[in-house]
């Protein structure tokens, strides 16, 4: 921890900057039409700048330990504390959220309709997500988790397209349904530990000292895991995801697929697997089987959709399956792959949704068969789509490649025959991934121009290019030189892997 930051509550500042800006904006006069986006940009830029400072000040040699801790008693009765901290995994997720939130605000720059309310909700959501990734008390974690999920209802319901009210309600109820199970699971952890605690590090110690019996773990691991996995779109609880992502406005799709789904995977890792490791061992084959369905079914689904957003939404289901499969291996390789895939997929899907938003804003259709030849008029968009698409099918040199490779290796080297089969089957999904990525490229961006009016279209403006280039450049850098990130993840995972108990790598 660097001396420059000593005493400064940087983690609070990161999540409160957007959150409080959102609340303040709520009370701004309704006549403001341009100011809200400036406020949103400023707030997300503050978070981004603080995150960069955090990246520099973080002690990478102690990536497994909690750093920059803040701890206050909040509600003494149930052991509720305001406790923040970052370890390597949190750090990576905070960085992802900072990048996506900043890009999302820029991607909504042209939004006119009820812009004040839109940016209020976007900031509340973004702030809540920062909070979840740094919260180390289960109550705080859970409260922020719900705060991050709920604005989605209005964001999709008001500013969405298509069957937006249906999608918004479905998404909200399914995710909140998941969080209802979380509530039970969290209370079970609290009363299952002695002395009762909601503090995550304390509970980790309680787990390590064997306080949670095997019957307890067998019962409560699936409750907690499924509660989170709904948000990570685990099959068959993924159905909110295609509808929700397809109906949501651009920035919301970016944030939702980019970071909110990662909250689910993060919770699975930090809470379900981290606190109930034996339960995780017991249920790992079942999780792996479902995750395999995600991977294969998602990629087939993406290959058979004709709406650009549905294609990307199903591809998210597939890629999140990869994350869950990595988690299910419970070994260093698979877990690191899962965490890296969370990061890589967040960036990639953010670019995808930003580009689709750009395209849709010009052509007013996302229907694949009616698009064609857009590369001729929008070369920047097409080129960016090519890069993101190559990342999607795991081309070396982009951030998804090391992630997917590690997940496959993790599954294959797990030792069990079952995992080996699952790993091989998951690899086969790459065929479908190639199919849908190349199909979109070929159909929408290359080939003849289908409508004469497309000839008038303009390429992306400067403001629109900034978020895309920003996210793509992170993808390339991490893809070409993933080792610092991997070292960070490995360091952060070391205590967990030790708790999981010397599995074959």
């Amino acid at each position, binding site marked *: 921890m660097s001396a420059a930051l000593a005493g400064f509550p940087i983690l609070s500042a990161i999540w409160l900057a957007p959150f409080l800006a959102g609340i303040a904006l709520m009370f701004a006069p309704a006549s403001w039409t341009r100011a809200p986006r400036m406020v949103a940009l400023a707030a997300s830029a503050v978070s981004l700048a603080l995150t960069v400072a955090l990246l520099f000040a973080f002690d990478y040699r102690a990536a497994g330990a909690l750093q920059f801790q803040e701890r206050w008693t909040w509600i003494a009765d149930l052991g509720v504390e305001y406790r923040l901290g970052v370890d390597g995994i949190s750090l990576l997720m905070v960085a992802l959220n900072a990048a996506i939130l900043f890009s999302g605000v820029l991607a909504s720059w042209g939004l006119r309709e009820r812009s004040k309310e839109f940016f209020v909700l976007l900031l509340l959501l973004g702030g809540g997500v920062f909070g979840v990734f740094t919260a180390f008390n289960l109550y705080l974690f859970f409260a922020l988790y719900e705060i991050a999920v709920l604005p989605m209802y*209005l964001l999709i319901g008001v500013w969405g397209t298509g069957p937006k009210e249906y999608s918004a309600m479905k998404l909200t109820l399914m995710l909140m349904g998941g969080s209802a199970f979380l509530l039970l699971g969290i209370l079970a952890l609290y009363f299952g530990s002695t002395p009762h605690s909601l503090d995550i590090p304390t509970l980790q110690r309680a787990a390590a000292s064997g306080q949670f019996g095997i019957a307890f773990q067998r019962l409560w691991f699936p409750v907690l895991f499924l509660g989170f996995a709904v948000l990570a779109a685990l099959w068959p609880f993924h159905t909110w995801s295609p509808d929700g992502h397809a109906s949501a406005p651009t920035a919301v799709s970016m944030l939702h697929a980019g970071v909110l789904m990662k909250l689910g995977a993060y919770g699975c890792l930090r809470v379900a697997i981290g606190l109930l490791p034996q339960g995780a061992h017991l249920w790992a084959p079942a999780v792996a089987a479902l995750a395999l369905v995600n991977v294969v079914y998602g990629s087939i689904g993406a290959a058979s959709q004709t709406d650009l957003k549905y294609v990307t939404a199903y591809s998210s289901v597939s890629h999140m399956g990869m994350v869950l499969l990595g988690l299910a291996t419970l070994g260093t390789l698979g877990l690191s792959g899962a965490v890296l895939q969370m990061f890589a997929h967040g960036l990639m899907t953010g670019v995808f949704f930003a580009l689709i938003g750009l395209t849709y804003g010009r052509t007013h259709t996302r229907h694949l068969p009616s698009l064609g030849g857009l590369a001729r008029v929008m070369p920047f968009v097409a080129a960016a789509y090519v890069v993101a698409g190559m990342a999607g099918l795991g081309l070396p040199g982009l951030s998804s490649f090391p992630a997917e490779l590690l997940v496959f290796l993790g599954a294959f080297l797990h030792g069990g025959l079952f995992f080996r089969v699952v790993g091989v089957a998951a690899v086969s999904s790459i065929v479908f991934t190639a199919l849908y990525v190349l199909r979109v490229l070929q159909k929408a961006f290359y080939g003849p121009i289908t409508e004469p009016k497309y000839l008038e279209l303009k390429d992306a403006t400067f403001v629109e290019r900034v978020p895309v280039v920003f996210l793509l450049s992170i993808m390339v850098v991490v893809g070409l030189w993933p080792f610092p990130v991997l070292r960070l993840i490995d360091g952060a995972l070391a205590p967990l892997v030790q708790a999981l108990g010397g599995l074959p790598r």
Partner: protein
Amino acid sequence: MNLALPLPEYGVLGLALVVLLYDLVVPERVSRRALGWVCALGFAGVLALLLRSDAPQVAPVPTAFGGMYVADGLALAFKTLIVAAAMLASLASLDYLEARGVRWQGEYYLLLTLVTFALMCLVSAGDLLTLYVALELNSIGFYALVAVLKGRSLTSSEAGLKYLILGALSSALLLYGISLLYGLSGTVSLAGLAAWAAGAARSPALVVALALVAAGLAFKMSLVPFHMWAPDVYQAAPTPVTAFLSVAGKTAALALLVRVLDAALGGFIGVWDKLLMVLMAATFVWANLGALKQRDAKRLMAYSSVAQAGYLAIGVAAGSALGLQAALFYALVYVFTNVAAFQVLQLVAESGGPELSGLRGLGRRSPGLALILAAAVLSLAGIPPFGGFFGKFYLFAAGVREGIVAGRSWLLALVGLAVVMSIVSLFYYLILVKQMYIEPADPEAPGTGGPVAVPLGARLVLGVCAAMILWTGLYPSPILAWIRQALF
């Protein structure tokens, strides 16, 4: 005997006398609107008195009238809630009655104070007889209050009559149960019953007595299947009365459940907790599903209130100190949340009508009102950062604790059901949010054009409630300390 003990009750009785005198002295043609302010101020005074008094911290608790009146911390805490609700109801009433030209405003405020008095006696009852008399006094007052729109609204009179008939039936059930208990134990004092229950054997007559008492109390609490009156009465009653009935009536019923089941008959928890859990399970399922298809906003909130009563009962069924504290905290949150919701609905209905569609476009027309209603219903759904979130967390914690620490797995399953059904409730609460923020205002519909007028009384109500919804969610520790001190 300490005659000064029921000082808050004397205060409310004095207020009733002031109202009576005012009505007598002031000429007929002068509006009685000022009585709303008089009542609000009077209740505020009593509230200050209650907040300043300390709960007794050592046994035995002070009693008066030969043990028929108990001034313990439980009574003190519940009285505080009841008087706060009465104060808010007076503020909400003054412009409502005036706008409708209700003739019996003097009687209305008199009944309001007397009902409050009865509810206060009810939560202080140390004896089944005081309990029964206080219960009847408040019920009769409520029957009349519900029907106070007589001559202006047929449904109001109908609801009053319906409430009267069903209420009389439930009182008869309760009385029969009480008589059986007396026959078994030879005492009507709650303390005496507790002493008897500690050693008595179970018998078929006891099960019948417990079932009858539970049924009578469940009616007041509006647990399914004894909730039938609630939707009709809530929908047709004047909105301030609905709000008062739903919060004060239910809070007092909760106090009764605690006093009779947990405190006096705690020895039989193995018998009555099954009964109560069946009622609760039915409540969670039926009330939440029933709310889904409602089109009238007040009727929807009626079903929601029935469901909320089920959540409150978790604290009673847990039968632990934690459960009691959680129930009391949730009752406190519920009072302010429900009053806020009904206040907004009342204001909106003035222009937009009682249907849910009257809320359309409220987010644009009156952003402040929409924000408060959204906060209130999200709090009822248990969404952070509002009070309902911590309240539900606390209540469910009490239930899960019994399941995991004490091994009562049925209660754990019941909490699971409650959690799942609270997701169903989120659906209908979000429908209110959707009407306000997503549906565009219908330019054809009358009264959905401009902003909603908010008179001073309503402003005060909303201000207090909004502050409490946030406070209970963001920093509940002082309130929890107050509750712990009251329940020691």
